[in-house]
């Protein structure tokens, strides 16, 4: 029997759930194709398929889907409506599956998480596996193993970040934003590469242990109900004592970020810079802003150390 090939677009929540997705399909014995890092071509391709008002990560996602279309049997998409009772995510994630299905003539594999309708992650993964024709016991095992693997990998990354916090004496900057912005080749990679070249220790907001997110995020905004933005707020609160500066990375025109970042900027007392990135962005302008921000942080740190002596 031929192996089923599944394409995973390297955009949006790939950066959050990659371990789970890849491991799950590996356990089932499927072949996996992951699209390459984002480049200009993919973005240009994606712009054709989505409204010009849509946000940058959405355009990139469509580009990745287009890239995968004729290379695999199924493309994996998802629909996430509600991850926790009383909370929500951006409505783009709610529309994503129907959007893909209507834009491209292709069979899409998808899962749907909506806690208010009792559709949990496990349930929807099993439904997805049944669609591929696997026996459900095998799917359940594959899912549980993948989940365990994901948790393990998460903890490893958390502890790596904690080590940086504890040991290093270098300048520390928190890079806060959605993971699909932080790690994307076109959006955040350039920034993190530049900062690392400068010998700065970078902390990432998505590597923050979400155990205390409820308590932490309420310090900035008690009524925020966007799950992913809550995690960003939580990471800022928990790290703000230990870092020298915060970089808020966002894309144009992100819906939840437009309001949540306003709250963050107005509450947090640390040196903070907001980088708004759109598709016409040039690296030179960004680097200049980063340079001056790093200079300010260095000055502050020197001043602080002199006073302590």
């Amino acid at each position: 029997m031929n192996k089923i090939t599944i394409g995973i677009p390297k955009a949006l929540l790939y950066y959050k759930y990659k371990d789970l997705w890849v491991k799950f399909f590996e356990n089932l014995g499927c072949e996996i194709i992951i699209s390459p890092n984002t480049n200009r071509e993919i973005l240009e391709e994606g712009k054709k398929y989505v409204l010009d008002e849509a946000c940058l990560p959405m355009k990139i996602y469509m580009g990745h889907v287009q890239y995968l279309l004729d290379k695999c049997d199924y493309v994996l998409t998802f629909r996430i409506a509600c991850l926790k009772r009383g909370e929500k995510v951006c409505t783009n994630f709610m529309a994503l599956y129907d959007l893909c299905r209507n834009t491209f003539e292709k069979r899409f594999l998808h899962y749907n998480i909506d806690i208010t309708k009792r559709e949990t992650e496990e349930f929807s993964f099993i439904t997805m596996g049944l669609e591929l024709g696997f026996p459900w016991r095998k799917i359940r095992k594959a899912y549980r193993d993948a989940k365990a693997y994901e948790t393990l990998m998460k903890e490893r990354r958390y502890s790596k970040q904690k080590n940086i916090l504890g040991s290093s004496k270098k300048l520390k900057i928190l890079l806060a934003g959605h993971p699909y912005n932080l790690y994307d080749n076109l959006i955040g990679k350039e920034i993190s590469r530049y900062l690392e070249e400068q010998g700065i220790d970078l902390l990432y907001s998505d590597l923050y242990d979400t155990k205390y997110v409820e308590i932490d995020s309420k310090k900035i905004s008690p009524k925020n109900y966007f799950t992913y933005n809550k995690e960003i707020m939580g990471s800022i609160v928990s790290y703000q004592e230990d870092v020298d500066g915060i970089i808020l990375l966002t894309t144009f025109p992100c819906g939840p970020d437009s309001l949540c970042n306003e709250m963050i900027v107005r509450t947090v007392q640390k040196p903070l810079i907001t980088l708004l990135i759109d598709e016409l962005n040039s690296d030179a302008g960004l680097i200049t802003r980063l340079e001056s921000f790093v200079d300010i942080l260095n000055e502050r740190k020197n001043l602080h150390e002199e006073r302590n002596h």
Partner: protein
Amino acid sequence: MKKEIISFPHLGDYSVPITYFLTHTTPHEIRPAPKITKQTLELGSKYSPDYVCIPFKYNLGNFIESLENGATILLQAGGGCRYGYYAEVQEKILKDLGYDFQFYSLVDSDHFTVSHMFQTFRKLNPHLPFLKFAYYALLTLLMIFYMDKLDEIIRQNIGFEKKPGLFRKTKTEMLETFSHTKGFLSLTRAYFRYKKKFQRIEIRSKENCLRVGIIGELYTAMEPFATYFLEEELAKMNIEIKRFTNVTYLLFLKKWKTRGMLRKIHRYCYYTLGADGMDNVYRAKYLIEEGFDGIIHTKPFGCTPEIGAIPIIDKVCKEEEMPIIYFSFDSGASDTGIKTRLEAFYDMIQAKRGRE
């Protein structure tokens, strides 16, 4: 208790029932925000985040003007998309501007519960009995329901009236009467009286007129053009309009209809798209089936649910060869630009009708 002044932002003409409700349940003075002008939007945009959607800017402008007007308590609703999060951010922005006020949001995130509403009003009036609260809440809801019913008649006919201004004059009268309602009976009587009045207003004959449906986001469908701008512009070109969204729909009908709508447009949407996204896809389909000549879609710039829905609506319309035009409003929208685009749209649907 100290006498306070309560204020709230505008949404169409709904300030009348809200004022009615608040005067009867709280001992405070009610002063709705001053009428929306260009100034309101400028004030709002000045202090809002750059790329937030336009209702936020209107609401913030409303709040600033009410505070300048002496308000000490502000009310905000919520729900749907990021609208539910408006309240907290606006409170923060206004507090940072140095205003002194109390802020209450009636709906927490998306959970509309009677008990939460009642708790909030208890804070405004500690001696409010529940029965009184329930009585006036029902009366207000009925008033909104009647208003929406009459509004439908007005929107269909306002452009065709023989004596210009008569519909508007009658509507002001109607709102005045509604705001002095004494109970369910007098409200119902007033409703039927005005319904007759509206129906008796003389209109030009509608023979051979084109029919167009307006779908899209709630706030732009009601607020910036509360003056029936689109209706009158289109009526000049001999076009009749059908609108969908109103508060009645959001409060009562949406919950009942969602499953049925999903079943009908199963080919396009498996799931809801957030806020009114899926509803608009359904409406587009409905308009096509009813044999309308064209569709107008309005939304504020950057409205996430609609951005998700538009490609799907586009597909529906393409398959059925239905003309559709999209308007995206931001703070720089001008009447002239809209008029020009509307004229072009008119030419298109006219040509299409001629062909058939």
